[in-house]
């Protein structure tokens, strides 16, 4: 792999950029691999990379039905933070955040991780109680998260309306300064390039149509649109379609897939310095390096694989954004879209073994999958290599729905009483 650097760019600039190599190679599939990863998003590509780099397992294929990063990796609002409540969540998201901090250098690919701060707005006493609970838990866990007064919040994000007459006035905010954003496509491409460099096969436009099983029920390979490909282990990480893939091995997972919508405004000069989220009015916003306001949005209420959604969902989001930032009412929406999120009953991910030997699953990241990408990928690689979860991911097992040991971040937030 030719190293990327400012010198490489300069050299290529002088010869019309004719010397760049493909970032990853797409060979014909082998007959069999040690590991097949189903799903060429950030999690799957990252897992392939860490399998090769940290576990020495390089006879690996990532199989993607469409294009790399074409699922939720390329459709999200790129928010990164780790200020969750429960140990299980803090462990995995903080592990991920630490990897984010060095990911550009690790991959020799600028993923544009930008710790511009994620600020979560508190609008009432209940919010404040909940955020304080997070802040204290985070501090004792070694994660930065601090309480801001309304004025401090406005200083950090000048467009914010902190007037007491607002319908949902702001009584403070929780700020994680290390939180921020990254360039979503670059994450998929960076992992693909680095994995490919270590020998991983990246196979796009290859749809998995079935999972073949051996005499003891163990997996032996996948039926695909390009024929059968053998595998000693299969790891499924196909956000949005995990239920479909897992059903091919007759495994039911507690998921429902719903469209999560997002939108961007027209590009404008820098106006919005950080990420702001409000759970009470339900909206989140940041500004991309191109200048677009990136705004996320709600999920449609029904199961759907359609990557579209109703106008009323983004309407409600924009209601909230314009209430928090009245100056944005004249701004224009340039594009709206949807991604399909897999949601578990406790809104926490499932990563672990399955009832089928040598079949592993990584799913249910809901609306939080992007920020988890490096951490999830890293721990998923451990699971695939060792056959058992890394201790940081040991709470994410499928079995918790039987025992009741849920990791219910949403329930912990409860509701106003």
């Amino acid at each position, binding site marked *: 792999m030719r190293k990327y650097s400012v010198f490489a760019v300069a050299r290529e600039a002088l010869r019309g950029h004719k010397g760049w190599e493909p970032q990853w190679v797409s060979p014909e599939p082998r007959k069999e691999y040690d590991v097949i990863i189903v799903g060429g998003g950030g999690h799957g590509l990252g897992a392939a990379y860490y399998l090769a780099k940290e576990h020495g397992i390089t006879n690996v294929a990532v199989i993607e039905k469409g294009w790399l990063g074409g699922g939720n990796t390329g459709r999200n609002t790129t928010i990164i933070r780790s200020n969750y409540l429960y140990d299980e969540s803090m462990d995995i998201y903080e592990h991920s955040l630490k990897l984010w901090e060095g990911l550009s250098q690790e991959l020799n690919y600028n993923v544009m991780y930008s710790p511009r701060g994620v600020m979560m707005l508190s609008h009432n006493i209940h919010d404040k109680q909940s955020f304080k609970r997070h802040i204290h838990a985070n501090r004792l866990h070694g994660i930065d998260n601090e309480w801001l007064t309304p004025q401090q919040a406005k200083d950090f994000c000048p467009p914010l309306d902190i007037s007491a007459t607002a319908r949902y006035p702001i009584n403070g905010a929780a700020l994680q300064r290390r939180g921020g954003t990254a360039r979503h496509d670059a994450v998929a491409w960076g992992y693909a390039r680095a994995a490919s460099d270590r020998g991983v096969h990246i196979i796009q*436009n290859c749809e998995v149509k079935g999972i073949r099983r051996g005499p003891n029920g163990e997996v032996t390979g996948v039926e695909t649109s390009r024929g059968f490909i053998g595998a000693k282990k299969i790891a499924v990480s196909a956000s949005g379609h995990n239920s479909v893939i897992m059903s091919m091995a007759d495994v039911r997972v507690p998921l429902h897939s719903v469209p999560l919508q997002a939108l961007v405004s027209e590009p404008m000069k820098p106006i919005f310095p950080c990420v702001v989220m409000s759970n009470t009015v339900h909206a989140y916003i940041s500004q991309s390096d191109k200048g677009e306001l990136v705004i996320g949005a709600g999920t449609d*209420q029904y199961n759907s694989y359609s990557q579209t959604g109703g106008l009323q969902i983004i309407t409600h989001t924009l209601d909230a954004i314009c209430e928090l930032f009245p100056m944005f009412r004249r701004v224009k929406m340039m594009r709206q879209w949807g991604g399909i999120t897999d949601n578990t009953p406790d809104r926490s991910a499932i990563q672990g073994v399955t009832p089928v030997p040598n079949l592993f699953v990584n799913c249910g990241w809901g609306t939080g999958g992007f920020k988890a990408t490096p951490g999830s990928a890293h721990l998923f690689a451990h699971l695939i290599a060792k056959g058992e979860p890394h201790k940081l991911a040991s709470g994410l097992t499928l079995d918790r729905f039987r025992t009741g040991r849920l990791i219910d971040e949403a329930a912990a937030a409860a509701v106003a009483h």
Partner: protein
Amino acid sequence: MLLIYCPYCEEERSELEFRHGGDAHIARPTNIADITDEEFAEFFFLRDNPKGLIFERWRHIHGCGRFFNAARDTVSDKFYASYKAGEPKPDLSAVHPATEKTVETYEATEGTAK
């Protein structure tokens, strides 16, 4: 925004009047206190999440208030049936082809020429 037929009001109304209620035809076990942990997890948590035809519950919450069931394709979001709670699952094999366990490529869903 979907257009949903309420079998009680006998008319199509905007989705804004309805609340989705999860999968249909999942009966609460009458002996629920006696079922195993596995059975409980199955009843309460596990769902097919089909890509294709789904039988689901809706409540006409800002209308007649009634719960009813509908059959919808989760790829096209097209409704195939809408029927009162308690009625059996309709046989839709004639109007809706059986769901294949296949996944369309993104190109296919996003408009590659045929």
